[in-house]
């Protein structure tokens, strides 16, 4: 009885083993074929694109010829993996070239399959396909889909709206700032930095008209983004906007304002405004940061301002002010303040005894 059971068990194990071998074999064959197929697509793509960019005399390489070559190697709608691989190759090639060849490729990629493949991804329900579609569109500089992308800039998914917003900056440059007021969802710090960097790389000439239109926005992330742009592009004429937000009620906005203003030198009038706003800031750490900044940019130290801070009820502010005064040659004022404390609060030694 036991022998029969054991024999049955061994048979079962053998069957499983054979099945595993078959699966491994099929997988190896599939992978080999797939690799060969991808190599064929890459080689054909390289051949076709090189012929298209540099045709020899008598060669007529038009988009119909290119379409036929791709269709022949299986880049067709019914094989989406092949189509995706071709899109990846297109993006890779476009990233490698500049000048007239880049322009030629942008036009070519609107004419050959898989035209519309990336655009159709925007309509997908899955967020990762949608985001990928948007990314492909801006990587391939297909500006004609910009209207569809604008709709996605308020998408619920952070990755989709992130890609959409970057696409808008790439396609529209400074003009994309006019959408800032219409954004309904929060923009993370990382996203703000990405937008500023893209704007700086691709549209280095500032257009203040669109920037100033964004000033009216009441969204904190919009204010922060605008301030970061002012800092990145060193827009001296727009410093007042940063000054306006130095004593903002929102901690993050104040933090951005202090960070952004630190890269500028201020006029006398602006410095007066900054000193007035200094007293409205509720956080000591931010006040100390500003004190150091004011000290750095002031040629003549404002003794009245620092003495006022020295007498502040906040010990940290008082100490920072003392440090600044001491380092700038006002040791007497500092000594007078600290010795004065003893006379104000005399220690009655006899009483304590």
């Amino acid at each position: 009885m036991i022998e029969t059971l054991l024999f049955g068990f061994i048979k079962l194990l053998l069957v499983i083993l054979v099945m595993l071998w078959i699966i491994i074999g099929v997988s190896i064959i599939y992978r080999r074929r797939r690799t060969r197929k991808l190599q064929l697509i890459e080689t054909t793509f390289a051949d076709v694109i090189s012929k298209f960019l540099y045709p020899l005399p008598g060669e007529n390489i038009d988009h119909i010829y290119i379409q036929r070559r791709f269709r022949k190697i299986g880049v067709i709608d019914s094989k989406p993996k092949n189509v995706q691989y071709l899109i990846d190759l297109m993006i890779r090639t476009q990233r490698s070239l500049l000048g007239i060849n880049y322009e030629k490729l942008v036009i070519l990629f609107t004419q050959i399959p898989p035209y519309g493949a990336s655009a159709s991804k925007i309509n997908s329900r899955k967020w990762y396909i949608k985001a990928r579609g948007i990314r492909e569109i801006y990587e391939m500089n297909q500006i004609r889909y910009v209207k569809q992308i604008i709709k996605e800039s308020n998408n619920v998914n952070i990755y989709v709206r992130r890609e959409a917003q970057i696409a808008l900056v790439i396609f529209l440059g400074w003009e994309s700032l006019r959408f800032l007021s219409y954004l309904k969802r929060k923009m993370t710090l990382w996203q703000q930095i990405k937008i500023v960097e893209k704007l700086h790389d691709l549209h280095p000439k500032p257009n203040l008209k669109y920037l100033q239109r964004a000033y009216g926005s009441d969204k904190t992330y919009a204010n922060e983004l605008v301030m970061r742009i002012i800092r990145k592009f060193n827009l001296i004429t727009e410093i007042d906007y940063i000054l306006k937000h130095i004593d903002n009620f929102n901690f993050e906005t104040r933090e951005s304002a202090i960070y952004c203003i630190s890269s500028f030198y201020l006029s006398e009038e602006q410095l007066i405004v900054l000193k007035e706003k200094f007293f409205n800031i509720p956080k000591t750490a931010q006040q100390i940061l500003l004190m150091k900044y004011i000290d750095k940019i002031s040629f003549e130290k404002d003794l009245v301002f620092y003495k006022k801070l020295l007498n502040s009820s906040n010990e940290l502010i008082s100490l920072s002010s003392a440090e600044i005064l001491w380092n700038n040659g006002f040791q007497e004022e500092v000594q007078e303040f600290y010795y004065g404390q003893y006379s104000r609060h005399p220690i009655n030694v006899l009483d304590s005894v």
Partner: protein
Amino acid sequence: MKKALVIQEDIIIQKILERLIISNNYQCRAISTLKDLEIEDQQQNFDIIISDILFEGISPLDFVFQIQEVILHKSLIIVTNMGQFKIRMKILASKKVDGFFAVPLDLNLIENLIAR
């Protein structure tokens, strides 16, 4: 006819460079790595070599020196993804190359060089 050699692992860049050179009336041989080099190739004196510098098992600068030793040529142009400032400076300082282009690049610049 002038002779050129292209050494690029990236098949797309390799093919594009090959066509660019052929359209400028050169006879062109394109290979992926130095391993693909044949004995006949080493006996040639190439007018121009356009090569990458990023290959497995060899540093960029050593690769440039190796080309100097292995293949006879008149001028060497580097086209590479590895365009870091330090590498560029090191390779240009070796005075073994006639041009250094980092991807993304405008191929018109190379065309101007080879059409001289």
